[in-house]
């Protein structure tokens, strides 16, 4: 009877020890796999520790489109089989680089434009009415940014056809760089989109809308002008109005050749 008890005890010990050994082999299998990746499992000692658990969960999460994993020591056998099987090479490849998911919770906000343009509510003069004038927007270094025609109705600008210049085409020879304008015309002004900032097909309006704001230096032109030279761009039939954009670049908004 005593011998039988002894045998049972020995058998039980062997069973437990054997399972333990098997478990450690599975953990070791995982650790050895991970050491060939960028997911550090700590020392390859067969012991299931925090580092091993974190590393294998990170790898499997990355392999499963960042789905959270909850792999425990009890899963070691299955995981080892997976790593040793057909998926092993794929997982090894995935394990060569870490991927950090993007989780943007802050408001990105509206895109701030390089230059703001807004003619809204700008009034040249309450006494001025012209059917058709030429307007130009010229950078202080001479680059023409836009040109077109504008009507003035009791001092309120009403934009007609116009075009913006992309790039630094300033001489007027490179007409291919001239873009169709994409100004949104309203009764009170124009909301413009510079094509060199944001391409919008003809007839479409897209965000971010950019505005041109006549700056503090805006000078109201004389109320009337009956003897204006058609080509007197420098003089500006209704005055030349300088404004400065956010970057300190100065532009001149000129209106001439009114009829």
């Amino acid at each position, binding site marked *: 009877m005593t011998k039988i008890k002894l045998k049972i005890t020995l058998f039980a010990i062997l069973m437990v020890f054997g399972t333990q050994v098997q478990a450690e082999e599975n953990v070791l299998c995982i650790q050895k796999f991970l050491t060939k990746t*960028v997911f550090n499992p700590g020392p390859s000692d067969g012991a299931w520790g925090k580092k091993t658990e974190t590393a294998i969960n990170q790898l499997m999460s990355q392999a499963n*489109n*960042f789905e959270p994993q909850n792999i425990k020591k009890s899963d070691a056998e299955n995981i080892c089989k997976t790593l040793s099987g057909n998926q092993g090479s794929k997982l090894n*490849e*995935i394990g*060569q*680089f*870490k*991927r*950090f*998911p*993007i*989780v*943007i*919770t*802050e408001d*990105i*906000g509206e*895109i*701030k434009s*390089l230059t703001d343009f807004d003619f809204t509510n700008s009034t040249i003069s309450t006494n001025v009415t012209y059917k058709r004038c030429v307007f130009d927007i010229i*950078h202080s*270094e001479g*680059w023409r940014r836009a040109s077109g025609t504008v009507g003035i109705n009791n001092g309120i600008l009403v934009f007609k056809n116009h075009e913006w210049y*992309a*790039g*630094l*085409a*300033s*001489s007027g020879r*490179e007409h*291919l*760089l001239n*873009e169709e304008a994409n100004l949104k015309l309203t009764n009170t002004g124009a909301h413009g989109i510079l*094509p*060199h*900032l*944001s*391409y*919008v097909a003809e007839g479409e309006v*897209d965000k971010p809308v950019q505005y041109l704001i006549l700056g503090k230096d805006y000078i109201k032109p004389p109320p009337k002008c009956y003897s204006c030279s058609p080509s007197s761009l420098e003089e500006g039939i209704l005055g030349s109005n300088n404004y400065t954009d956010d*970057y*300190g*670049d100065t532009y001149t908004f000129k209106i001439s050749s009114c009829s």
Partner: protein
Amino acid sequence: MISRRHFLSIAAPALALSGYPVHGFTKEPIEGRIIVIMLQGGMDGLLAIPPVGDDNLFKQRKALVASNPLKLNPLFGIHPNFRNFSKMLKSNEASIVHATSFPYTGRSHFEGQNIAQSGSKLPFSTNTGWLGRAMDFAKITGKALSLDAPLLIRGAPEFDNFYPANIEKTRSPQTALIDLIKETHDGDVMIAIDKLSRGSMSRPSRLRARDPLSLATKAGESMRELNGPRVAVLTIPEFDDHSSIGSTTGHHPELFTLLDNVFYNLKTALKEQWDNTIVLTTTEFGRTVQENGSAGTDHGYGSVGLLAGGLINKSSVVANWPGLASKDLYEKRDLFATIDYRSVCSACIEAAFGLEHDFIIEKVFEDKKIARIYEHIFG
């Protein structure tokens, strides 16, 4: 709509298009597009994509971190000037690869740019570019109109296929000359030239820097056509900020805005072809982790790559982050590059041209040790 001939006459030095199909030599149907934006001068990857979760960032370069980076995840943020790109990240149309570089540690613009375009380990060891060779192997051929093309898209002699790009007045001779002088000098001399050039010109960089935006639109318009080119190369110069690099605002941040709008314009102009496109940046090297005595940074090693396009399915930051403690830096001064950027180039070729990774690294890059990173970017 602009014609191809017209386009060829106006495309700027900062743009080259290639890969117009020639019937009988090109696979049908045409699918993937690759657009490379070469950021010349060495972009500061830590300013663009600051590892805000790494405490050593603030110890090493407190003054060179934007005050309000947009947080991407616990480790990384993005400079606030990348708003369009951030929106692409949010909508799973963009990804970032950090602590990366072409295999070059020499800190020379000439050598670095050559390697970034050739894809070789040794500078000036080949007269073809990795993208040109990939086009050849993918049988994306076209006519050779000129030899004036960036090395990047030069292929094997029998397959030379590129379009010239030239336009007047898009880059002032003064700044081009100064850039050339800067590239041939180092240390204090270069910093002095940098300062002098800034002082002598009235913000020429930003005025000129707007040009790539127009070019991006032109490239996108051309590439969205069914028989349009499948490859475009844009160049944005002036990243070599040895002085006054900026943080929240300043010169580098202005270039970030420019780059951000280039991404936006490409997407807008490409329209539905955006879904078949991958845009990637390259730069010859990163910049030093610590700022120098002129509020700038000097030539370094590891930097960052920005990728966007409809071929991306899931946004992420891919990085084997090496850390920013002094002991973790390359030669105790540079961000360590733990990812060979040629892996990224290979993945883009695989995604857009359909070549297999093993073939690409053996034939295009002639280096079988380049790891596959396709799943991390496009998976």
